[in-house]
């Protein structure tokens, strides 16, 4: 159900220390906020290259992952592009809407839309560097070392396991309902889905007892502790990562000089 999760478990960076990946992703993402737009535009390319040549995730898969946010984003940028203004102010293109108001596009809007568009794309691709290479359990273990309260970690661990179990339940139930014509029309769909949701709620409540037994029988003693698999920091990869970030900074400096100098 989550292709992101599938890659997170099957990539070449699987054993790379999650902290190393997190720092790199954060540095890339941070760069997108602080560096000028033309530099931020390079970030998705860098992310794609690291995923391809570092983690071994094909460019095509990366592009597919980018496509969905890209479509959200392109649509999400439209409201930024379009301005609604009291009449009398110049717009690049305009039409009359509500009497006394103008709807249209102007330079300011175009600038904002492009900035946000590029930035969002850059940050999204940086986050994929982390999400596509690091499964949630690894992140939870990392958070443990950062002293996040135990109860949250426990909830995250169990939630991760169980959301897939519940999702599978939901999917199978949906299929079974469809085979009995449960989704023939809008009203039947609503009623079938209501049943499905309710059943899921009841079943997840019943699941508590089984989960309790499972934990107890395996010696649970008040804390959910696991041993994360051995991770390693890779210096060579770290050097490449550092070089990329430095490269971005240099580019930002050059662009800045060009603009101000």
């Amino acid at each position, binding site marked *: 159900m989550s292709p992101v999760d599938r890659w997170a478990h099957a990539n070449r960076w699987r054993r790379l220390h999650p902290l190393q990946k997190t720092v790199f992703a954060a540095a890339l993402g941070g760069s997108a906020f602080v560096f000028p737009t033309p530099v931020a535009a390079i970030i998705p390319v860098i992310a794609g290259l690291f995923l391809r040549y570092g983690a071994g995730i094909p460019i095509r898969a990366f592009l597919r992952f980018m496509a969905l946010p890209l479509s959200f984003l392109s649509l999400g940028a439209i409201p930024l592009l379009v301005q609604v203004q009291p009449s009398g102010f110049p717009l690049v293109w305009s039409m009359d809407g509500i009497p006394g108001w103008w709807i249209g596009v102007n330079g300011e809007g175009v600038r904002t839309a492009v900035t946000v568009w590029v930035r969002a794309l850059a940050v999204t691709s940086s986050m994929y560097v982390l999400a596509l290479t690091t499964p949630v359990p690894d992140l939870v273990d990392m958070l443990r070392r950062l002293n996040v309260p135990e109860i949250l970690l426990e909830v995250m661990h169990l939630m991760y396991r169980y959301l897939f179990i519940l999702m599978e339940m939901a999917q199978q139930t949906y299929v*079974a309902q469809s*085979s009995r*014509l449960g989704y023939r029309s809008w009203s039947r769909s609503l009623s079938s889905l209501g049943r499905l949701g309710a*059943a899921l709620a*009841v079943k997840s409540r019943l699941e508590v007892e089984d989960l309790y037994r499972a934990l107890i029988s395996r010696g649970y003693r008040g804390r959910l502790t696991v041993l994360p698999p051995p991770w390693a920091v890779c210096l060579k990869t770290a050097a490449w990562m550092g070089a990329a970030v430095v490269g971005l900074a240099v580019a930002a400096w050059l662009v800045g000089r060009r603009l101000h100098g």
Partner: protein
Amino acid sequence: MDKPTFALEGVEYNYEDGTQALQGISLGIESGKKVAFLGSNGAGKSTLFLHLNGILRPFRGRILFRGQEVRYARKELARLRAKVGIVFQNPDRQVVIGHVWEDVSFGPMNLGLSPPEVEARVEEALNITGLWDLRDKAVHLLSYGQKKRVALAGVLAMKPEVMILDEPTASLDPGQVHALLELLERLHRQGIQIVLSTHDVDFAYAWADWVVIMHAGRVLAEGLPKDVFSDTDILKRASLTKPVLWRVWEELNKTGLYDGGPPRTVEELSAPIARAAADRRPTFG
């Protein structure tokens, strides 16, 4: 009714993650036959079954139901699903929530029948599955075996022409399996065609008119039980074993003492054995 119930022609299906679940399935299911699909877990049986009821749509190839190609428009799918019912392996996924009665009425309601008609069908389905006394119980409080029967009743109440059962005997105890078989026999006599999947070679051997062996998304063999189970090679490739009675028969055959064909039940074994013994006694006498 001469047309085959199902004809599949080169059906291919891949899952989202790229797994090739069905790799070109071609087969025919003759009308009126009791058909068993055998194969290991992951062989593609369940995926195939989801195609028979139009839940999944083949990437390539086509499926014919009674000679007509299955189309995936809303209305035509509804018609197909009204005729072909599926009972899933895990009743917990099929029996959703509510009273037994409410759950069984789900299908007939969706068929758009009048309330009295729905009621009549639910009653009949509950009676035939022996659930009448449980009709007002909440489904999640039932035992596993009872839920399995509710799942069956829910499909029966739609009066399908074909019933497809995915691993109907899984997790049932011998008594429950016996009761299920009796029920299936009864449905068969009423003219509902039964198609099922199973891991249990002994069961498939004793029950089926026609056996299909699947492995890794392909059909390895189909035919009469006596033909399919004589092919040691295919069974090995599908990681299946021969039925116990078949193996016993092979042992008996080696000795030349046994003159019958492969027996499907222990009872069928006894007559030839008795004959062999009778043959023998005079030689001593």
